[in-house]
């Protein structure tokens, strides 16, 4: 994997999505009511997408020419911290997908102790106690004070 290529390729991909949708929209006949709307839903989108495409290609060529396509060195980005960030991201993604199934309360009861532990709260028991206390405070604030309709999930019949 080359560092200097990923970013411009992502930009080019996004631009391509925009251009594809612009072409789709431009093939649709404009309704009579918008006869002065020369920009329409497509041309503004098209202009941004083409601009992005040009910038993406520019940065790609620049990176290729400038020799920025050096392979990632091992240990370059500070191993343990990156591992911690990867773990946090993993737990966040799990939490986002678990919430509709387990419900806010159960998912958060699991989320906080784990995330406190990842952030360095030790021992486990301490992170569990702090995590459950935080969940209780959050639940009280959002459910009772702010009256947010939080997903109930598995506890639908109890809560």
């Amino acid at each position, binding site marked *: 994997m080359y560092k200097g290529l990923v*970013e411009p390729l992502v*930009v080019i991909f*996004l631009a391509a*999505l*925009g251009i594809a*949708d612009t072409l789709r*929209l431009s093939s*649709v006949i*404009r*309704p009579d009511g*918008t006869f*002065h*709307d*020369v*920009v329409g*839903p497509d041309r*503004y*989108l098209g202009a*941004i*997408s083409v*601009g*992005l495409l040009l*910038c*993406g290609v*520019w*940065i790609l060529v620049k990176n290729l020419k400038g020799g920025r396509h050096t392979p990632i060195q091992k240990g370059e*980005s*500070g191993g343990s*911290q990156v591992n*911690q*960030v990867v773990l*946090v*991201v993993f737990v*966040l*993604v799990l*939490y*986002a*997908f678990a*919430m*509709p199934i387990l419900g*806010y309360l159960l998912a*958060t009861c699991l*989320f*906080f102790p784990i*995330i*406190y532990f990842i*952030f*360095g*709260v030790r021992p486990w028991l301490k992170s569990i106690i*702090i*995590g459950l206390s*935080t969940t209780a405070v*959050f639940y009280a604030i*959002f459910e009772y004070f*702010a*009256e*947010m*309709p*939080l*997903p109930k999930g598995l506890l639908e019949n109890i809560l």
Partner: protein
Amino acid sequence: MDQMESGLLGGFLGALSFTNLIYCFVGCVLGTFVGVLPGLGPAATSAILLPLTTYMPPAGAIIMLAGIYYGAMYGGSTTSILVNVPGEASSVPTCLDGFQMTRKGRAGEALAIAAIGSFIAGTIGTIALSFVAPALARVALKFGPPEYFALVLFSLTALVGFSEGSLLKGLIAGGVGMLLACVGLDPLSGKQRLTFGSVTFTGGMDVIPVLMGLFGVAEVLTSAEEGILHLYEGALGRLIPRGRELMKGIYASVQGTISGFLLGLLPGMIPAVTSFLAYDIERRLSKNPQQFGTGCIEGVAAPEAANNATSQAGFIPLMALGIPTSPTLAIMLAALMMYGLQPGPFLFLHHADFAWAVIASMYIGNVILLILNLPLVGLWARLCLVPYRFIGPVILGVCLVGAFSVRNRLFDVVACVGFGILGYLMKRRHWPTTPLILGIILGPMLEQSLRQSLELSGGSPIILLARPISITLIILTAVLLVFIRKVLYKPQFREAT
């Protein structure tokens, strides 16, 4: 003038109500706290709290968010002075002389002059805001879609150009933001754009999960690795500087206020930039420039006054024109729009009570902040030591619930996490995040004003060049682009600032 007096009087009546006073106090306390705390800024805090403000009255919510913004400017100096770690980017120049004063046993004086300078700038800035914003709003009443198109174009260019990183990266980030803003239904024709047949995308990309992800989640992921390593345990020394030193500090504060305020009217001139410029101006104007960097009181007063003056000045284009000049003000614009309050010239016409209550609250907020930051400074210095391992998870929890709360859609929670990861990666790879969010917020305004202008002219783009204000702004945009390319991106300039 009578209109301003009666408006301000009415504003004070509103701002002095018990509820609004509480919101103002909470905003100031939170602002000082996030200012003191390295790694958490006013933009992140405002973004995190934005969904919760939906449960508050509009005036109270904006009073609180404004308090967080200018409160953070007060608090940012504390750790700069005591431990040489800036609480805010805008307090980086304060480290240069503030920490040197601490090493000489003059920490108390440095903290006091920072608070006094901030108070002078905050109050003068609010007075100027009271006069200039309504007057500018009256002028802006004459603005039509072509003028707005040119104004948004100018602001976007400035905001992208002055953001960190390279101009090309800024342009790409801004373009991606504008592209994301297109997702959903086209407001004029009702056609689906970039939805690719998915019902989930039809509702468009809500700005709040994006803000919470980019500013909240990404901030936590980035800050998880950082922290203050040691606490200043020495004595603060005397608090108020002696006669001549105090006068020097006040004089530098006034100079910092003037430069910070004037620069703060321009889009992209965020407090982090103007405080550096004010420090540099102060050093150049000084009879003893060699003293700067060795613990000189003017080196603390000028940047601290400038960052406060800039934060106040930014409210003028926001309230009078509906144009944000910094990321935090863009969040405030989103908050105003969430309440159905369109900032701009009509704000002072249709929601005058609201606008004046917010302005009046700033006078009160500055007094609250002076009290919070002078006698209680020792308390703040210790509060900044709350370990990040306790704060980080709480911020993440608030972000995820906040993203969900606005539309009760789990898609928004996933979007918040996704944008958090994107924001973290962008920071690591030195891509600016500010243009992305401004593209999302200002992109639709640019498109709408362009399409309305062309509808007015029957499809001729000449309308954009035929009106004096719009042509002036378009020329200014071109000049600005050249300036950014030729001056700001020169390595010598980057090194100097």
